[in-house]
Protein backbone atom coordinates (compact mmCIF):
# COMPACT_ATOMS: atom_id res chain seq x y z
CA UNK A 1 0.00 0.00 0.00
CA UNK A 2 1.43 3.33 -0.99
CA UNK A 3 1.76 5.96 1.66
CA UNK A 4 -0.83 8.23 0.10
CA UNK A 5 -3.37 5.41 0.04
CA UNK A 6 -3.12 5.22 3.83
CA UNK A 7 -4.64 8.69 4.05
CA UNK A 8 -8.05 7.36 2.98
CA UNK A 9 -9.47 7.19 6.51
CA UNK A 10 -8.30 10.67 7.43
CA UNK A 11 -9.64 11.98 4.12
CA UNK A 12 -13.03 10.34 4.66
CA UNK A 13 -13.54 12.29 7.88
CA UNK A 14 -11.90 15.60 6.88
CA UNK A 15 -8.78 15.04 8.95
CA UNK A 16 -6.32 16.21 6.31
CA UNK A 17 -4.98 19.72 6.08
CA UNK A 18 -5.82 21.64 2.93
CA UNK A 19 -2.64 20.87 1.03
CA UNK A 20 -2.75 17.17 1.90
CA UNK A 21 -6.37 17.04 0.85
CA UNK A 22 -5.66 18.61 -2.52
CA UNK A 23 -2.83 16.15 -3.12
CA UNK A 24 -4.96 13.20 -2.02
CA UNK A 25 -7.82 14.22 -4.29
CA UNK A 26 -5.46 14.11 -7.24
CA UNK A 27 -4.56 10.57 -6.26
CA UNK A 28 -8.21 9.71 -5.65
CA UNK A 29 -9.26 10.67 -9.15
CA UNK A 30 -7.25 7.77 -10.55
CA UNK A 31 -7.53 5.25 -7.71
CA UNK A 32 -10.76 3.26 -7.79
CA UNK A 33 -9.70 1.27 -4.72
CA UNK A 34 -9.51 4.45 -2.68
CA UNK A 35 -12.82 5.71 -4.08
CA UNK A 36 -14.60 2.54 -2.98
CA UNK A 37 -12.89 2.50 0.38
CA UNK A 38 -13.73 6.11 1.11
CA UNK A 39 -17.38 5.55 0.21
CA UNK A 40 -17.59 2.69 2.70
CA UNK A 41 -15.66 4.55 5.40
CA UNK A 42 -17.99 7.53 5.03
CA UNK A 43 -20.94 5.21 5.54
CA UNK A 44 -19.28 4.05 8.75
CA UNK A 45 -18.48 7.61 9.86
CA UNK A 46 -22.09 8.62 9.22
CA UNK A 47 -23.05 6.31 12.09
CA UNK A 48 -21.11 8.39 14.62
CA UNK A 49 -23.67 11.25 14.77
CA UNK A 50 -26.19 8.67 16.02
CA UNK A 51 -24.37 9.07 19.33
CA UNK A 52 -24.65 12.86 19.45
CA UNK A 53 -28.22 13.59 18.39
CA UNK A 54 -29.57 16.83 19.83
CA UNK A 55 -32.86 18.53 19.28
CA UNK A 56 -32.36 21.41 16.86
CA UNK A 57 -33.74 24.81 17.86
CA UNK A 58 -37.02 25.74 16.19
CA UNK A 59 -35.34 28.81 14.72
CA UNK A 60 -33.12 26.56 12.58
CA UNK A 61 -36.09 24.98 10.84
CA UNK A 62 -37.57 28.40 10.12
CA UNK A 63 -34.33 29.83 8.74
CA UNK A 64 -33.64 26.77 6.59
CA UNK A 65 -37.09 26.65 5.05
CA UNK A 66 -37.09 30.41 4.47
CA UNK A 67 -33.56 30.27 3.11
CA UNK A 68 -34.26 27.71 0.42
CA UNK A 69 -36.78 30.09 -1.14
CA UNK A 70 -33.84 32.15 -2.32
CA UNK A 71 -31.68 29.31 -3.61
CA UNK A 72 -32.18 27.58 -6.94
CA UNK A 73 -31.30 23.88 -6.94
CA UNK A 74 -28.45 23.04 -9.26
CA UNK A 75 -29.28 20.94 -12.29
CA UNK A 76 -28.34 17.28 -12.12
CA UNK A 77 -25.12 16.16 -13.73
CA UNK A 78 -26.28 14.79 -17.06
CA UNK A 79 -23.05 14.52 -19.01
CA UNK A 80 -22.02 10.96 -19.70
CA UNK A 81 -18.53 12.01 -20.70
CA UNK A 82 -15.82 10.31 -18.68
CA UNK A 83 -14.30 12.45 -15.95
CA UNK A 84 -11.23 14.32 -17.13
CA UNK A 85 -7.97 12.69 -16.30
CA UNK A 86 -6.47 14.35 -13.28
CA UNK A 87 -3.04 13.58 -14.60
CA UNK A 88 -1.13 16.75 -15.06
CA UNK A 89 -0.58 17.43 -18.67
CA UNK A 90 0.86 20.01 -20.95
CA UNK A 91 -1.83 21.20 -23.28
CA UNK A 92 -0.95 22.39 -26.72
CA UNK A 93 -1.63 25.87 -27.91
CA UNK A 94 -4.81 25.08 -29.79
CA UNK A 95 -6.11 22.46 -27.41
CA UNK A 96 -5.88 24.73 -24.41
CA UNK A 97 -7.91 27.48 -26.00
CA UNK A 98 -10.39 25.06 -27.51
CA UNK A 99 -10.88 23.26 -24.22
CA UNK A 100 -11.68 26.45 -22.38
CA UNK A 101 -14.08 27.67 -25.01
CA UNK A 102 -15.77 24.28 -25.05
CA UNK A 103 -16.17 24.32 -21.28
CA UNK A 104 -18.38 27.34 -21.27
CA UNK A 105 -17.73 30.10 -23.74
CA UNK A 106 -14.84 32.38 -23.19
CA UNK A 107 -16.82 35.55 -23.66
CA UNK A 108 -19.49 34.66 -21.14
CA UNK A 109 -18.04 36.33 -18.08
CA UNK A 110 -14.59 37.73 -18.27
CA UNK A 111 -12.99 39.78 -15.60
CA UNK A 112 -9.55 40.63 -14.44
CA UNK A 113 -8.45 41.88 -11.08
CA UNK A 114 -7.74 45.45 -12.06
CA UNK A 115 -11.10 46.20 -13.59
CA UNK A 116 -14.69 45.83 -12.56
CA UNK A 117 -15.85 46.17 -16.14
CA UNK A 118 -16.92 42.68 -17.13
CA UNK A 119 -17.14 43.64 -20.81
CA UNK A 120 -13.59 44.91 -20.86
CA UNK A 121 -12.13 43.42 -24.02
CA UNK A 122 -8.40 43.77 -23.12
CA UNK A 123 -8.94 41.19 -20.41
CA UNK A 124 -10.06 38.70 -23.01
CA UNK A 125 -6.83 39.09 -24.88
CA UNK A 126 -4.83 38.78 -21.67
CA UNK A 127 -6.66 35.56 -20.88
CA UNK A 128 -6.23 34.42 -24.47
CA UNK A 129 -2.50 34.99 -24.24
CA UNK A 130 -2.30 32.60 -21.29
CA UNK A 131 -4.50 29.98 -22.89
CA UNK A 132 -2.59 30.05 -26.15
CA UNK A 133 0.89 30.27 -24.66
CA UNK A 134 3.18 27.46 -25.88
CA UNK A 135 3.67 26.29 -22.32
CA UNK A 136 0.03 26.67 -21.27
CA UNK A 137 -0.62 23.92 -18.78
CA UNK A 138 -4.05 22.84 -17.58
CA UNK A 139 -4.09 21.56 -14.01
CA UNK A 140 -6.64 18.95 -12.93
CA UNK A 141 -10.11 20.33 -12.39
CA UNK A 142 -10.99 20.73 -8.73
CA UNK A 143 -14.58 19.62 -8.14
CA UNK A 144 -15.93 21.49 -5.17
CA UNK A 145 -18.00 19.95 -2.41
CA UNK A 146 -20.65 22.56 -3.15
CA UNK A 147 -21.06 21.20 -6.68
CA UNK A 148 -19.00 23.70 -8.62
CA UNK A 149 -15.69 23.18 -10.36
CA UNK A 150 -12.49 25.17 -10.72
CA UNK A 151 -9.92 24.76 -13.47
CA UNK A 152 -6.61 26.54 -13.62
CA UNK A 153 -4.41 27.04 -16.68
CA UNK A 154 -1.00 28.54 -16.12
CA UNK A 155 1.85 29.71 -18.26
CA UNK A 156 5.17 29.89 -16.54
CA UNK A 157 6.71 31.83 -19.42
CA UNK A 158 4.06 34.54 -19.05
CA UNK A 159 4.26 34.27 -15.24
CA UNK A 160 0.52 34.20 -14.91
CA UNK A 161 -2.48 31.93 -14.83
CA UNK A 162 -6.18 31.93 -15.62
CA UNK A 163 -8.78 30.37 -13.38
CA UNK A 164 -12.19 29.34 -14.58
CA UNK A 165 -14.98 28.70 -12.07
CA UNK A 166 -18.25 27.03 -12.90
CA UNK A 167 -21.39 26.58 -10.77
CA UNK A 168 -19.83 28.23 -7.74
CA UNK A 169 -22.21 28.64 -4.80
CA UNK A 170 -22.69 32.30 -3.84
CA UNK A 171 -19.98 33.53 -1.47
CA UNK A 172 -22.74 34.80 0.83
CA UNK A 173 -24.11 38.19 1.81
CA UNK A 174 -21.39 40.85 1.95
CA UNK A 175 -18.80 38.25 1.02
CA UNK A 176 -16.62 37.69 -1.99
CA UNK A 177 -14.46 34.87 -3.29
CA UNK A 178 -10.79 35.78 -3.08
CA UNK A 179 -8.05 34.09 -5.06
CA UNK A 180 -4.72 33.17 -3.49
CA UNK A 181 -1.34 31.84 -4.47
CA UNK A 182 0.71 30.09 -1.84
CA UNK A 183 4.36 31.10 -1.64
CA UNK A 184 6.54 29.44 1.02
CA UNK A 185 3.45 28.24 2.84
CA UNK A 186 1.83 31.70 2.96
CA UNK A 187 -1.18 32.68 0.91
CA UNK A 188 -0.79 35.91 -1.05
CA UNK A 189 -3.84 37.53 -2.63
CA UNK A 190 -4.20 36.96 -6.35
CA UNK A 191 -7.31 39.10 -6.77
CA UNK A 192 -11.04 38.86 -6.22
CA UNK A 193 -13.60 36.86 -8.13
CA UNK A 194 -16.60 38.79 -9.42
CA UNK A 195 -20.01 37.66 -8.26
CA UNK A 196 -21.83 35.03 -10.27
CA UNK A 197 -21.54 31.29 -10.54
CA UNK A 198 -19.33 31.24 -13.65
CA UNK A 199 -16.21 33.32 -14.09
CA UNK A 200 -12.94 33.34 -15.94
CA UNK A 201 -10.31 35.39 -14.15
CA UNK A 202 -6.69 36.29 -14.74
CA UNK A 203 -4.65 35.89 -11.58
CA UNK A 204 -2.46 38.57 -10.08
CA UNK A 205 0.94 37.25 -9.12
CA UNK A 206 3.30 34.65 -10.48
CA UNK A 207 2.13 31.03 -10.28
CA UNK A 208 5.51 29.75 -11.50
CA UNK A 209 7.02 30.16 -8.06
CA UNK A 210 3.87 29.23 -6.11
CA UNK A 211 3.13 25.93 -4.38
CA UNK A 212 -0.63 26.06 -4.58
CA UNK A 213 -3.67 28.04 -5.64
CA UNK A 214 -6.69 28.54 -3.44
CA UNK A 215 -10.06 30.28 -3.22
CA UNK A 216 -11.65 31.43 0.03
CA UNK A 217 -14.81 33.28 0.96
CA UNK A 218 -13.88 36.66 2.46
CA UNK A 219 -15.70 39.79 3.60
CA UNK A 220 -16.47 42.19 0.75
CA UNK A 221 -13.33 43.94 -0.43
CA UNK A 222 -11.15 40.94 0.38
CA UNK A 223 -8.69 40.24 3.17
CA UNK A 224 -4.93 40.46 3.59
CA UNK A 225 -4.81 36.82 4.61
CA UNK A 226 -7.41 34.06 4.27
CA UNK A 227 -9.82 34.06 7.18
CA UNK A 228 -11.58 30.87 6.19
CA UNK A 229 -10.41 27.52 4.86
CA UNK A 230 -10.26 27.32 1.08
CA UNK A 231 -13.30 26.15 -0.84
CA UNK A 232 -10.90 25.17 -3.59
CA UNK A 233 -7.26 24.30 -3.35
CA UNK A 234 -5.07 23.12 -6.19
CA UNK A 235 -1.59 21.98 -5.28
CA UNK A 236 1.16 22.51 -7.84
CA UNK A 237 3.73 19.83 -8.29
CA UNK A 238 6.92 20.75 -6.52
CA UNK A 239 9.65 21.76 -8.87
Amino acid at each position, binding site marked *: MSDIHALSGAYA*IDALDDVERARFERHLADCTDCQAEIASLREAA*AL*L*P*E*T*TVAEAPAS*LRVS*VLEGIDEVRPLPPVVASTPPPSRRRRVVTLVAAAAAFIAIGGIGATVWHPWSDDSSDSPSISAIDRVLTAPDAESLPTDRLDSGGAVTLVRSNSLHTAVVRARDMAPAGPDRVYQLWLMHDGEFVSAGLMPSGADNTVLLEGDPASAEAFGITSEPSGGSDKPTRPPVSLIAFDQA
Partner: protein
Amino acid sequence: MTHIGPVSTGASPSEEAPVPATDQASVLAALLKRAGRGDKGAFAELYDATSARVYGLAVRVVRDPAQAEEVAQEAYLELWRSSARFDPDRGSAISWILTIVHRKAVDRVRSAEASSRRDTSYHQQNQAVEHDATAEAAHASLEAHRVRGALTSLTDVQREALELAYFGGYTHTEVATMLDLPLGTAKTRIRDGLIRLRDTMGVPT
Protein backbone atom coordinates in the same frame (compact mmCIF):
# COMPACT_ATOMS: atom_id res chain seq x y z
CA MET B 1 -15.54 10.14 24.19
CA THR B 2 -12.97 12.84 24.65
CA HIS B 3 -15.15 15.89 24.42
CA ILE B 4 -18.12 17.23 26.22
CA GLY B 5 -20.99 16.50 23.94
CA PRO B 6 -24.14 18.45 23.50
CA VAL B 7 -26.53 17.56 26.25
CA SER B 8 -29.95 17.07 24.80
CA THR B 9 -32.60 18.55 26.99
CA GLY B 10 -35.15 15.91 27.70
CA ALA B 11 -36.93 13.98 25.03
CA SER B 12 -34.83 12.46 22.34
CA PRO B 13 -36.20 13.49 18.98
CA SER B 14 -39.11 11.23 18.27
CA GLU B 15 -38.88 11.74 14.52
CA GLU B 16 -35.72 9.68 14.56
CA ALA B 17 -37.24 6.68 16.23
CA PRO B 18 -35.56 3.55 14.93
CA VAL B 19 -36.52 2.82 11.37
CA PRO B 20 -35.03 -0.11 9.48
CA ALA B 21 -31.88 1.19 7.86
CA THR B 22 -32.82 0.25 4.32
CA ASP B 23 -36.24 1.88 4.61
CA GLN B 24 -34.70 5.04 5.95
CA ALA B 25 -32.12 5.06 3.17
CA SER B 26 -34.70 4.78 0.42
CA VAL B 27 -37.00 7.35 2.05
CA LEU B 28 -34.21 9.90 2.37
CA ALA B 29 -33.00 9.24 -1.17
CA ALA B 30 -36.53 9.75 -2.51
CA LEU B 31 -36.91 13.00 -0.54
CA LEU B 32 -33.63 14.28 -1.93
CA LYS B 33 -34.73 13.46 -5.45
CA ARG B 34 -37.95 15.43 -4.99
CA ALA B 35 -36.03 18.30 -3.40
CA GLY B 36 -33.82 18.39 -6.48
CA ARG B 37 -36.93 19.19 -8.49
CA GLY B 38 -37.68 22.13 -6.20
CA ASP B 39 -40.14 20.36 -3.90
CA LYS B 40 -39.90 22.35 -0.66
CA GLY B 41 -42.31 20.05 1.17
CA ALA B 42 -40.01 17.12 0.52
CA PHE B 43 -37.09 19.13 1.81
CA ALA B 44 -39.02 19.98 4.98
CA GLU B 45 -39.59 16.25 5.49
CA LEU B 46 -35.92 15.62 4.91
CA TYR B 47 -35.11 18.27 7.48
CA ASP B 48 -37.40 16.72 10.06
CA ALA B 49 -35.90 13.28 9.49
CA THR B 50 -32.30 14.43 9.84
CA SER B 51 -32.11 17.64 11.89
CA ALA B 52 -31.32 15.98 15.22
CA ARG B 53 -28.31 14.22 13.73
CA VAL B 54 -27.24 17.26 11.69
CA TYR B 55 -27.56 19.76 14.52
CA GLY B 56 -26.16 17.32 17.06
CA LEU B 57 -23.07 16.78 14.94
CA ALA B 58 -22.63 20.49 14.29
CA VAL B 59 -22.88 21.41 17.95
CA ARG B 60 -20.59 18.58 18.92
CA VAL B 61 -17.86 19.78 16.57
CA VAL B 62 -18.16 23.56 16.89
CA ARG B 63 -19.39 23.59 20.53
CA ASP B 64 -21.02 27.01 20.39
CA PRO B 65 -24.78 26.53 19.83
CA ALA B 66 -25.19 29.75 17.83
CA GLN B 67 -22.32 28.85 15.50
CA ALA B 68 -23.59 25.30 15.26
CA GLU B 69 -26.94 26.61 14.13
CA GLU B 70 -25.23 28.69 11.44
CA VAL B 71 -23.23 25.70 10.29
CA ALA B 72 -26.35 23.54 10.14
CA GLN B 73 -28.21 26.22 8.21
CA GLU B 74 -25.39 26.61 5.69
CA ALA B 75 -25.26 22.85 5.29
CA TYR B 76 -28.98 22.53 4.67
CA LEU B 77 -28.91 25.31 2.07
CA GLU B 78 -26.08 23.52 0.33
CA LEU B 79 -27.98 20.24 0.51
CA TRP B 80 -31.00 21.90 -1.06
CA ARG B 81 -28.87 23.49 -3.73
CA SER B 82 -27.07 20.31 -4.69
CA SER B 83 -29.82 17.78 -3.99
CA ALA B 84 -30.13 16.87 -7.67
CA ARG B 85 -26.45 15.92 -7.61
CA PHE B 86 -26.94 13.20 -5.03
CA ASP B 87 -26.17 9.84 -6.65
CA PRO B 88 -27.70 6.88 -4.75
CA ASP B 89 -25.33 4.53 -6.57
CA ARG B 90 -22.38 6.12 -4.81
CA GLY B 91 -23.57 5.94 -1.22
CA SER B 92 -26.47 6.47 1.15
CA ALA B 93 -28.31 9.76 1.50
CA ILE B 94 -27.48 10.07 5.19
CA SER B 95 -23.78 9.54 4.50
CA TRP B 96 -23.88 12.22 1.81
CA ILE B 97 -25.76 14.62 4.08
CA LEU B 98 -23.54 14.12 7.12
CA THR B 99 -20.37 14.33 5.04
CA ILE B 100 -21.41 17.82 3.93
CA VAL B 101 -22.41 18.84 7.46
CA HIS B 102 -19.18 17.51 8.92
CA ARG B 103 -17.08 19.32 6.36
CA LYS B 104 -18.85 22.61 7.10
CA ALA B 105 -18.41 22.12 10.84
CA VAL B 106 -14.72 21.29 10.47
CA ASP B 107 -14.21 24.28 8.18
CA ARG B 108 -15.77 26.47 10.83
CA VAL B 109 -13.56 25.32 13.67
CA ARG B 110 -10.44 25.50 11.54
CA SER B 111 -11.14 28.98 10.28
CA ALA B 112 -9.22 31.86 11.76
CA GLU B 113 -12.44 33.13 13.31
CA ALA B 114 -12.61 30.21 15.68
CA SER B 115 -9.93 31.25 18.08
CA SER B 116 -11.42 29.97 21.28
CA ARG B 117 -10.60 26.32 20.93
CA ARG B 118 -9.27 24.48 23.86
CA ASP B 119 -5.68 23.38 23.75
CA THR B 120 -4.18 19.96 23.83
CA SER B 121 -3.35 19.91 27.51
CA TYR B 122 -6.91 20.73 28.43
CA HIS B 123 -8.15 17.76 26.45
CA GLN B 124 -5.75 15.36 27.99
CA GLN B 125 -6.39 16.55 31.54
CA ASN B 126 -10.12 16.24 31.20
CA GLN B 127 -10.66 13.03 29.38
CA ALA B 128 -11.96 11.07 32.33
CA VAL B 129 -14.48 13.73 33.27
CA GLU B 130 -15.64 14.08 29.70
CA HIS B 131 -16.23 10.37 29.44
CA ASP B 132 -18.64 10.54 32.33
CA ALA B 133 -20.39 13.66 31.09
CA THR B 134 -20.96 12.02 27.74
CA ALA B 135 -22.22 8.84 29.33
CA GLU B 136 -24.82 10.80 31.23
CA ALA B 137 -26.04 12.33 28.01
CA ALA B 138 -26.32 8.96 26.41
CA HIS B 139 -29.35 8.47 24.28
CA ALA B 140 -31.43 5.41 24.49
CA SER B 141 -31.92 5.08 20.78
CA LEU B 142 -31.28 1.63 19.51
CA GLU B 143 -28.97 2.79 16.75
CA ALA B 144 -26.90 4.88 19.14
CA HIS B 145 -26.65 1.88 21.41
CA ARG B 146 -25.43 -0.29 18.55
CA VAL B 147 -22.87 2.30 17.46
CA ARG B 148 -21.55 2.70 21.00
CA GLY B 149 -21.27 -1.04 21.23
CA ALA B 150 -19.36 -1.19 17.98
CA LEU B 151 -17.00 1.54 19.18
CA THR B 152 -16.01 -0.64 22.12
CA SER B 153 -14.57 -3.11 19.62
CA LEU B 154 -11.97 -0.53 18.66
CA THR B 155 -8.69 -0.30 20.53
CA ASP B 156 -8.45 2.68 22.86
CA VAL B 157 -6.02 4.43 20.54
CA GLN B 158 -8.18 3.82 17.48
CA ARG B 159 -11.24 5.17 19.25
CA GLU B 160 -9.47 8.21 20.66
CA ALA B 161 -7.89 9.04 17.32
CA LEU B 162 -11.18 8.63 15.49
CA GLU B 163 -13.10 10.76 17.98
CA LEU B 164 -10.52 13.54 18.10
CA ALA B 165 -10.51 13.68 14.31
CA TYR B 166 -14.24 13.30 13.70
CA PHE B 167 -15.78 15.14 16.63
CA GLY B 168 -12.81 17.34 17.46
CA GLY B 169 -12.18 18.40 13.89
CA TYR B 170 -8.44 17.90 14.29
CA THR B 171 -6.14 16.82 11.48
CA HIS B 172 -4.39 13.47 11.75
CA THR B 173 -1.08 15.20 12.43
CA GLU B 174 -2.66 17.19 15.26
CA VAL B 175 -4.18 13.99 16.59
CA ALA B 176 -0.77 12.31 16.53
CA THR B 177 0.67 15.09 18.65
CA MET B 178 -2.27 15.10 21.05
CA LEU B 179 -2.03 11.36 21.62
CA ASP B 180 1.78 11.26 21.65
CA LEU B 181 1.77 8.95 18.65
CA PRO B 182 4.70 8.78 16.24
CA LEU B 183 4.05 11.18 13.38
CA GLY B 184 2.20 9.43 10.61
CA THR B 185 0.58 6.72 12.70
CA ALA B 186 -2.60 8.57 13.67
CA LYS B 187 -3.87 8.32 10.10
CA THR B 188 -3.50 4.56 10.28
CA ARG B 189 -5.33 4.40 13.62
CA ILE B 190 -8.15 6.50 12.20
CA ARG B 191 -8.44 4.29 9.15
CA ASP B 192 -8.25 1.06 11.15
CA GLY B 193 -10.87 2.39 13.56
CA LEU B 194 -13.26 3.30 10.75
CA ILE B 195 -12.75 -0.09 9.12
CA ARG B 196 -13.51 -1.87 12.37
CA LEU B 197 -16.59 0.27 12.96
CA ARG B 198 -17.71 -0.40 9.40
CA ASP B 199 -17.24 -4.14 9.67
CA THR B 200 -18.77 -4.43 13.13
CA MET B 201 -21.85 -2.51 12.03
CA GLY B 202 -22.15 -4.54 8.86
CA VAL B 203 -21.82 -1.58 6.53
CA PRO B 204 -21.59 -2.88 2.95
CA THR B 205 -18.19 -2.37 1.40
